[in-house]
């Protein structure tokens, strides 16, 4: 179980303050939705948790330890676009995470090792309902299938934290609710904490146990550079992680 502690985080780019005074204590196995207007630093915050960028000030602790300065297997991610590799089939996309770990030099498994990894990858494909599509390339899959594939690809590394960067923003409404149900199921089954960036309030309240809104307290044009976004609302959604 993974607790995340964000302590007075500030983020600046070229003298422009993007985020300021962000402090959060996130309980283990939370599903945190981050909402807010475009350009308020939601995705920046996700990149800080990912370790892709470092905060100008403040600290982000995962289970008491600072986030490493680069992405690693403990924090998985699903982006809105470009989340899966276009040159690999669905199965190969999922296998890749296993091959990175088990074949340091060639990153490619063969023979018995590959058959074992393949069986493991297939259970993940099945888990997201893509068993039939194992040998298809991403361009042959629909948007919803691609995002499900991206979820399975991230989950095979058993991340402690899963980051979702507007993962369902480009999906049709019907498909979106299917993927919502799947996402919630996958989260319930695992001991991971989820951070999801969304600009859809309904989506946020449907899925999350906690909804956090980022916004700038001052929004006059001449003040935008000097004041970053911070947490303006922090709402607990009462939903038991164990509920059906």
């Amino acid at each position, binding site marked *: 179980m993974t607790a995340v502690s964000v302590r007075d985080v500030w983020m600046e780019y070229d003298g422009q303050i993007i985020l300021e005074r962000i402090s959060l204590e996130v309980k283990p196995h939370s599903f945190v939705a981050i909402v807010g207007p475009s350009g308020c630093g939601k995705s920046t915050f996700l990149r800080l948790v990912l370790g892709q960028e470092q905060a100008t000030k403040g600290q982000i602790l995962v289970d008491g330890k600072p986030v490493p300065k680069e992405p690693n297997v403990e924090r998985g991610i699903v982006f809105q676009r470009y989340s899966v590799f276009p040159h690999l089939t669905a199965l190969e996309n999922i296998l890749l995470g296993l091959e*990175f770990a088990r074949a340091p030099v060639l990153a490619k498994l063969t023979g018995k090792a590959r058959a074992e990894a393949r069986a493991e990858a297939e259970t993940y494909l099945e888990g997201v309902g893509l068993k039939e599509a194992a040998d298809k*390339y991403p361009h042959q899959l629909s948007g919803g299938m691609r995002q499900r594939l991206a979820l399975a690809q991230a989950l095979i590394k058993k991340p402690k934290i899963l980051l979702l960067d507007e993962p369902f923003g480009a999906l049709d409404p019907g498909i979106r609710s299917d993927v919502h149900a799947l996402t919630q199921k996958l989260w319930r089954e695992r001991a991971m904490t989820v951070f999801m960036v969304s600009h859809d309030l309904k989506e946020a309240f449907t899925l999350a146990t906690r909804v956090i809104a980022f916004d700038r307290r001052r929004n006059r044009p001449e003040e935008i550079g000097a004041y970053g976004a911070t947490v303006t609302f922090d709402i607990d959604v009462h939903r038991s992680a164990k509920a059906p």
Partner: protein
Amino acid sequence: MRRLINLKPGHGAAIVLAALPFILVIIAYLAGSAERLAANPEDKLLPAPHSLGEAIDRVAFKPDKRTGDVVLWTDTAASLGRLLAGVAISASLSLIIGIGVGLVPLLRATFETMIAALAMIPPLAVLPILFLVFGLTEVAKIALICICIAPFMTRDLILRVREIPEEEIVKAQTLGGSTWQIALRVVLPQIWPRLFDSIRLALGSAWLSLIAAEAIASESGLGYRIFLLRRFFAMDVILPYVAWITLLAFALDWSLRRMQHVLFPWFTAQRGAG
């Protein structure tokens, strides 16, 4: 009447339209040739079709009396050997350097400016240096092709590596990939099809430098033959040679495009081109 920009030819019409300019050029040639030969039967500038036919028969199908070789084929083998060697070396160099420099910021900071500078050297200006260093050897000619195309292929591939979405590189890191593994499994496979594009673009320059090198210092090759025959005003051989070189270049380009299509179906589908 619909707008001109909305009129699209059907399949058959497209073939006819594509053939039309060629037919017009041939007609213009025949007319010009007939006119010049009528004025002066000894004219060599625009040989008649039957003289071209005889010349083609002589160089492409009959062994040379002195050496016993069929001239066109030995020339073609020599030229293609040099061309393919030069292109293969350039492609390998640009692939390795392109991926390294495109993916690793430290390598990029070190080499990017130098590669840009190298790409600015006019290749023919270094030809004398190559001949002084390597002598009038095969190495000098292949090196000229490499100097002509490797720097810009490398720059092209660096850009193509940089075009791979950042999200993919980040995702690969969250899946546990090391720099080497990401280069091998995420970047390299996506750069292969782009290398084919790069080679197709470079082939024109590769032919140019090959013909130049052969014209100046060689005893075989298509470029050597053309420049040799120029002294004898042998347009009846030069013209078929130029047509043959064009055909070879066209065939190479076409086969590269087909190979790209067959080997990397995901790439052409993604690009939306056949």
